[in-house]
């Protein structure tokens, strides 16, 4: 299918799963890599700081795991499912720019291990529909 570009502005990758809060995850063995989608990073604009959880922290699905500070807004990022943090991208604490520049690559935020189900994640079609709906409703 290939990556999807919405409104010439937001790139949604087709090989990832998503949450309704615009985070992406990708399974690699036991561990899932986690970040925010390009839609979220474009909307946030230039970032000032990322507050990461600690390795070993455990979260329930949709718990706040940390905070992303943009220049004029602060948002939480949420657990994609019940999980334990196994690795954090600590470089982001010094420089959050990779999230803006390469949110699906260098800008990954955490690696987590699910401690329960992951079935509720959105596939790319559903996530794209959700983004289109948010744009239409102006709730983004």
């Amino acid at each position, binding site marked *: 299918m290939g990556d999807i570009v919405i409104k010439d502005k937001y790139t949604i990758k087709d090989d990832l799963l998503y949450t309704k809060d615009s985070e992406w995850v990708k399974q690699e063995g036991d561990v899932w890599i986690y970040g925010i989608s390009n839609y979220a990073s474009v909307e946030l604009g230039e970032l*000032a*700081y990322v507050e990461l959880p600690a390795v070993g922290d455990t979260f329930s699905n949709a718990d706040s795991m940390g905070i992303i500070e943009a220049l004029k807004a602060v948002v939480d990022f949420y657990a994609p499912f019940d999980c334990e943090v196994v690795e954090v991208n600590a470089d982001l604490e010094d420089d959050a720019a990779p999230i803006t520049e390469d949110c699906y690559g260098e800008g990954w935020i955490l690696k987590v291990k699910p401690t329960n189900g992951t079935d509720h994640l959105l596939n790319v079609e559903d996530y794209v529909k959700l983004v289109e709906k948010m744009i239409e409703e102006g709730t983004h």
Partner: protein
Amino acid sequence: MTEDFKGHPYLANSKEDMDGMMEYLGIKDVEELYSDIPDEIKFKGELDIPYYESEYALMEAVKAKLSKNLTTRELRSFIGGGVLDIYVPALQDEILRRTEFYSGYTQYQEEVSQGSLQALWEYQSMVCELTEMDVANASLYDWATGVGEAALMCARITRRNKFLYTSAIGPNREAVLQNYVTGAKLSLSIIPHDNATGKMDIAKAKEMMDDTVAGIYIENPNFFGVIEDEIEEIINDAHEKGIRVVVGVDMNSLALIKPPGEYGADICIGEGQTIGGGPLNFGGPLLGVIAMKYDKRDIRQMPGRIVGITITQKEGERAFCNTLQTREQHIKRERATSNICTNEALVALSCAVHLSLLGKEGYKDTAETMYLSAHYVASELEKIGAKRVFSGEFFNSFIVDLKVPKDKKKEFTNFMLERKILAGILHSSDGENYDLLVTTSYLLCEDDLNDFVKAIGEWRN
């Protein structure tokens, strides 16, 4: 209120207005608005306030009442413990009361008020220079809230929930700290002091510092007036275990003794009233000083407003701004770094003006005067047999062994008041006998010091 009340010459609300408002609120009596206040602390009976007086008669009545107050202008003050009798030069008031500055609140749309921001930035810079720290905020309420905020900061930074403090802490600061940490579920432990020197027990401190401790708070000079000259010995230990070191200072002492930034403390707090925040006034307004070493991650845990300096986008002109605002309530809402949203901007400004007027030399001169006066009083008292309780070196405060029995405290205070002396703070370690914490400001002249020594001699006889 009288039955025939039709209105009041100075209040805009007529009886009709008030009835309308009460009907809307569904109450029968104004008193019902205060029903949340516990009965035992409510004033009972009728307030005996005359209904009409001429302005002249009113002013005279107020003046007569006020003249019964005794202030540090009529009395010689030996009170310290976190506040100090200071002199506010006329010029300080003149600048402070300029309409551009004179507001109890931080300006809204602050960046428009570049002058105010610059003044606060200057204040922060002075605090950093005095404490040798990298970052200061634009003020907290007072020293006591500073202790609470610093404890919470350490907990957030380290993600630990134990906090240590030394026993030689000001009692009001200890009380505020205890209150402050209850919500955050921080557990507190006290490091004892050495009974001979009055300094913290270093061995015990080291023993109590393990890697579950978030931070340690030490006052220097401590509440007993004693200089804690061994803090450096625990700094490395603390840092190796990831513990943050918070030092509470007498801001005047920094003119003569090493500032916390120099010996490796992470956070420094103190009281700004004593360096020019303002005169003593029924205990306030005070000024909480807080400063820290720079760390990109840790600085986000500092509470309150921080004013920064930058350049404008187009012309590259110098500009002041609020910085790191994402920590604050108006952006981060319930997850804000602190619930401190008001600050003491006006008092901070006042402090900056005071320090500017004093200058580097004046600041040092006043501190030297305080130091010399205290040492003179201590040695004169010793001559008449009134010894210091602790042997540790001191700045401008010390505890003199008086052993005033609990039931004679009032008598002692009045005895000294009769001699136009505000004697200091009575302090007890056992709740039975009270010793006296004596502090000398730079406003006391030789006669005042001699009168004090004489009065103590008379009391002891």
